[in-house]
């Protein structure tokens, strides 16, 4: 394989992968935040229906 | 149709009258635009070749920024005293309300821009006389594009928290094709080049933009204002 400009190829591929990976991490963080919020609101509903 | 036009003109007249009474927006936009033009005339040598190339771009940047100031106020001024609700509840259709405001904004912006054009001609030694009619035509088409999009998004963002931020964020990317066309045409015209086979395409782009988005806006403004 011709290795000229391989440095730029490496940068290019890194960019092509870093961007979706960052997005996956953000999705994950949001997922956790949403689940926490869901549990909290479910507890709130239970408490208001109890007495 | 006559009902629509009458309502639109009535609203346009109301907006213009209210603006001319206080002249807030007019003064702010004029001061802003002229200041920028003057600042740039210090930064660049007015007789240089570079200025011929960027002149059109510079003018339209000034117009776009001044436009944002004006257009933001368009629907925002109705939020006091529930005026917006009253207008929506009135027999005038949302499209007539939108069109009336667009006409008023267009008139205001054209006034500001023609003034800026003359200031530009003065300080930048631009040759306006050669293609003056065509320059005014291009400015009118470009300003209508800015007005259509700006008034529409002024309606869309009227009740939002970050209105002053959201309006430019949404309007400027949408305006890119129209601004590209207007800037290219104005640069050519200021250099004395008439509309020829090279730049006629941009005139068509501007016209297409105006027609398409006027239709889209008139169709969707009801969805935006009422639901």
């Amino acid at each position, binding site marked *: 394989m*011709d290795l000229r*400009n*391989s440095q730029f*190829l490496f*940068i290019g591929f890194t*960019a092509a992968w870093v961007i979706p990976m960052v*997005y996956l991490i953000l999705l994950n963080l949001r997922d956790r935040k949403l689940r926490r919020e869901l549990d909290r609101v479910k507890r*709130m509903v239970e408490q208001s229906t109890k007495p | 149709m006559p009902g629509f036009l009458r309502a639109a003109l009535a609203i346009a007249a109301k907006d213009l009258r209210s603006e001319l009474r206080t002249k807030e927006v007019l003064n702010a936009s004029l001061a802003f635009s002229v200041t920028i033009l003057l600042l740039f005339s210090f930064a660049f040598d007015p007789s240089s070749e570079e200025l011929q190339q960027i002149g059109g771009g510079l003018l339209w940047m000034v117009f776009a920024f001044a436009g944002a100031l004006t257009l933001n106020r368009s629907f925002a001024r109705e939020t006091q005293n529930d005026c917006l609700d009253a207008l929506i509840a009135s027999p005038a259709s949302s499209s007539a309300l939108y069109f009336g405001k667009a006409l008023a904004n267009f008139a205001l912006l054209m006034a500001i821009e023609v003034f800026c054009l003359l200031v530009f001609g003065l300080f930048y030694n631009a040759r306006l006389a050669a293609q003056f009619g065509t320059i005014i035509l291009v400015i009118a088409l470009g300003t209508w594009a800015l007005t259509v999009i700006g008034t*529409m998004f002024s309606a869309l963002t009227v009740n939002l928290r970050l209105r002053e931020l959201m309006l430019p964020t949404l309007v400027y990317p949408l305006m890119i094709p129209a601004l590209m066309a207007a800037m290219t045409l104005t640069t050519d015209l200021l250099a004395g080049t008439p509309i020829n086979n090279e730049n006629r395409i941009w005139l068509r782009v501007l016209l297409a933009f105006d027609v398409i988005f006027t239709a889209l806006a008139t169709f969707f403004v009801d969805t935006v204002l009422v639901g």
Partner: protein
Amino acid sequence: MSESTVRDKVLFGLAGFAAILLTWNLHTIFLVMPDELNQGAIWRIFFFHVPAALLGLTGFGLGMIFSLTYLFTNNLRYDAIAESIIEVALVFAAVNLVTGSIWARIIWGIWWAWDARLTSMLVCWLIFAGYLMLRRAIDEPTQRARLSAVVSIFGAVDVVIVWKSIEWWRTQHPAPVLSIRNGGGMDPGMESTMYWNLLALFCFAVVLVMVRMRQARISQEIDSLRRLAHSY
């Protein structure tokens, strides 16, 4: 609850398939694909640059269609689909823009050029990033869906105008185009590899959209539960 386990199975299956296919493609891209005359190694970025563009643009187009569907049906489900697709499309469009810029730096010596495709993609990205910003500024779900739908429609029309106008202009001022076409056609071996990678990335995109949609649904559930809690 079996519906969600079926969904999860599909999700993992697709993700696994995408991962395997991507790994196989990387092997093909680096070891099987022939060298290009002038560019050296960088041309291989093509196999990610083009699929990213296709997926991005398709995503934005679908986003607009689902936005229109929402406006006609008032069913918030379509709004959630539109939002998820557009968000994922933004990721792929960003990949396209960045890889395109790096590639252009090698081929043309400049980081950017105002050609039809790059400019349209950039404008598209800015408009739909604005779409997401707008959504963040509105709390009420129906208002959010309605207003962002209008933005998405305006955006899609605008991108078409940008594309067409620069294309018309460029027919008078031909400019270099990022592609590996030799006399009109692409080497069939290269073309098929690109399509295989397109498939892999498409599966990856579907996985992302499905995950995002699940989050949208959880978000809606939270909203309705909160309203329920406050009504007591």
